[in-house]
């Protein structure tokens, strides 16, 4: 006979996602209720913003759209977004990564699914160069790209190819040639590559195979370069580097099932694990199956936060951050006026701007700095928190 677990909440009528506490409590917990300072639409035609990058001087934003277009925006005084180019790049295949150089605010990289990485000079909007994958065999379909701390090495990751191999392709940025590849460290699509923010030789790769590999590219062979390997045991979507209060390297990852894992790199220990039910609870929402974890960002003062929202009501009801603090996620900021399911974001540590893009093709900028004038008052907060106040007491997220 059916056991109890089959007679669970899924047999009953669906419950819409909602806040798990009242407005007043939300305002107390998420002490910053922020309205957008600026918003712009990428296009009048339907499109999604899937990738976003900011220049090192924080003046420019590049957005990769699902329409295979690369756009450039300026961030003006006061956080106002202004279009600089709606068609900086137009491609035959999907955009898979957008990245400004670390030391040069005018150089921008864009990689596409069909295996090309383009270099742009944003001053002239010129496509300056195209890095070609001259590795053996067919051109590898790409999934992401990143550039190392000193802007000398470019790495692009690939999907698993017909041969069963997945690749990490390296290019010399200045010499503009293909350097070589790693191809033994993953067994499925590599979803994300991320260089260390200050060490030019260190980088991490993540894959659908559930592994996060950390490499030291100063070593001669792939075998020797592979330093650490973390088995997340489920497909990984994105990774990021952080530092703990003592300066030790940490790597976080968001899985395809919206869980967040955190590892101490040197000791290879798992530091924390938050599944989507826990993240939903911390966000003060009721429905874990609607949780959308966008990613993590460093505050710039030694700690980091998680940006997450809800897919419910097309993402409009909820966009919040949770601060990581000693193995817990604490309520941080709440972003009002969000109109879409957010897919990519950048955080300007200097001015404390959060800039996000998503499934309605909008690019929105929120100013997080609390000098009093940016915060909305109680009325504003409740306005932006306006939603169907269906508070379910059946607290049983999936």
């Amino acid at each position, binding site marked *: 006979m059916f056991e109890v*677990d089959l007679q669970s909440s899924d047999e009953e009528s669906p419950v819409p996602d909602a806040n798990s506490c009242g407005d007043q409590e939300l305002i107390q917990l998420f002490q910053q209720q922020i309205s957008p300072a600026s918003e712009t639409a990428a296009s009048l035609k339907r499109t999604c913003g899937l990738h976003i990058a900011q220049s090192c001087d924080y003046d420019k934003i590049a957005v990769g759209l699902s329409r295979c277009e690369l756009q450039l925006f300026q961030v003006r005084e006061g956080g106002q977004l202004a279009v600089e180019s709606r068609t900086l790049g137009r491609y035959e295949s999907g955009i898979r990564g957008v990245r400004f150089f670390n030391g040069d605010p005018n150089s921008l990289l864009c990689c596409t699914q069909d295996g090309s990485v383009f270099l742009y000079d944003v001053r002239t909007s010129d496509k300056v160069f195209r890095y070609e994958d001259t590795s053996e065999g067919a051109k590898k379909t790409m999934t992401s790209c990143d550039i190392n701390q000193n802007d000398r090495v470019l790495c692009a990751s690939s999907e698993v190819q017909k041969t069963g191999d997945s690749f990490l392709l390296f290019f010399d940025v200045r010499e503009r040639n293909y350097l070589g590849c790693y191809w033994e460290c993953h067994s499925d699509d590599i979803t994300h590559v991320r260089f260390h923010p200050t060490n030019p030789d260190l980088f991490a790769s993540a894959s659908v195979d559930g592994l996060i590999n950390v490499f030291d590219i100063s070593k001669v062979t792939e075998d020797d370069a592979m330093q650490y390997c973390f088995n997340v045991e489920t497909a990984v979507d994105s990774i990021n580097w952080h530092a703990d209060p003592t300066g030790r390297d940490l790597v976080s990852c968001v899985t395809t099932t919206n869980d967040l894992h955190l590892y101490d790199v040197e000791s290879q220990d798992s530091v924390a694990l938050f599944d989507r039910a826990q993240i939903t609870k911390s966000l003060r929402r009721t429905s874990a199956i609607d949780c959308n974890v966008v990613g993590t960002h460093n505050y710039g003062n030694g700690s980091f936060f998680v940006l997450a929202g809800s897919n419910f009501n097309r993402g409009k009801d909820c966009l919040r951050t949770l601060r990581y603090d000693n193995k817990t996620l604490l309520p941080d900021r709440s972003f009002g006026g969000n109109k879409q399911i957010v897919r990519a974001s950048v955080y300007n540590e200097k001015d404390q701007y959060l800039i996000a893009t998503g499934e309605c093709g909008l690019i929105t900028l929120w100013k997080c700095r609390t000098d009093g004038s940016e915060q909305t008052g109680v009325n504003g907060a409740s306005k932006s928190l306006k939603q169907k106040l269906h508070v379910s007491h059946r607290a049983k997220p999936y």
Partner: protein
Amino acid sequence: MASKVSRDILYECVAEVLKGAETKRRRFLETVELQIGLKNYDPQKDKRFSGTVKLKYIPRPKMQVCVLGDQQHCDEAKANDIPFMDAEALKKLNKNKKLVKKLAKKYDAFLASESLIKQIPRLLGPGLNKAGKFPGLLGHGESMVQKIDEVKATIKFQMKKVLCLSVAVGHVKMSPDELAQNVHLAINFLVSLLKKHWQNVRSLHIKSSMGAAQRLY
């Protein structure tokens, strides 16, 4: 979240699948798969649809798991008739790619003690990575047998370019109850990961390896 597959239909289809396998017996243990067809989902735009889920009953009983253990785990493995290797045995492979590949082929999955798992890249190189068999972590607080059963009960799925995917949820020697529960669990988990949940599901079928597909939804 309401399940759109009623208990009756689920049991009906499960019965049909099992009957089909019983009527025309094959020379191997047929797997039962859940096939899900998606709609309103664009692989170029939407978030990647993939993950792992632990089922209630083991769908692949023949799965072989090898323990790469410290002294304590090796003793436990020996006592429970579980294949194992210790650090010395791994060192003997000398990072030889052919031997590591052979080891990877011999077993379906690996579990490793904390102390050993941190040394895998140094001891074996990337061979297990390449084979998709990097070990999972075996802690000291849990029963080894239980952890192995967990590994055997866990299924992975990934949507590639086409809007349908197939995942093994059981086998034809399972009882109708066991199979139904596994199917139900898998469906609920998969649907919970879709942005619009049931609105993203076009169809659901179950079938045995050689049998006809039975439509659930």
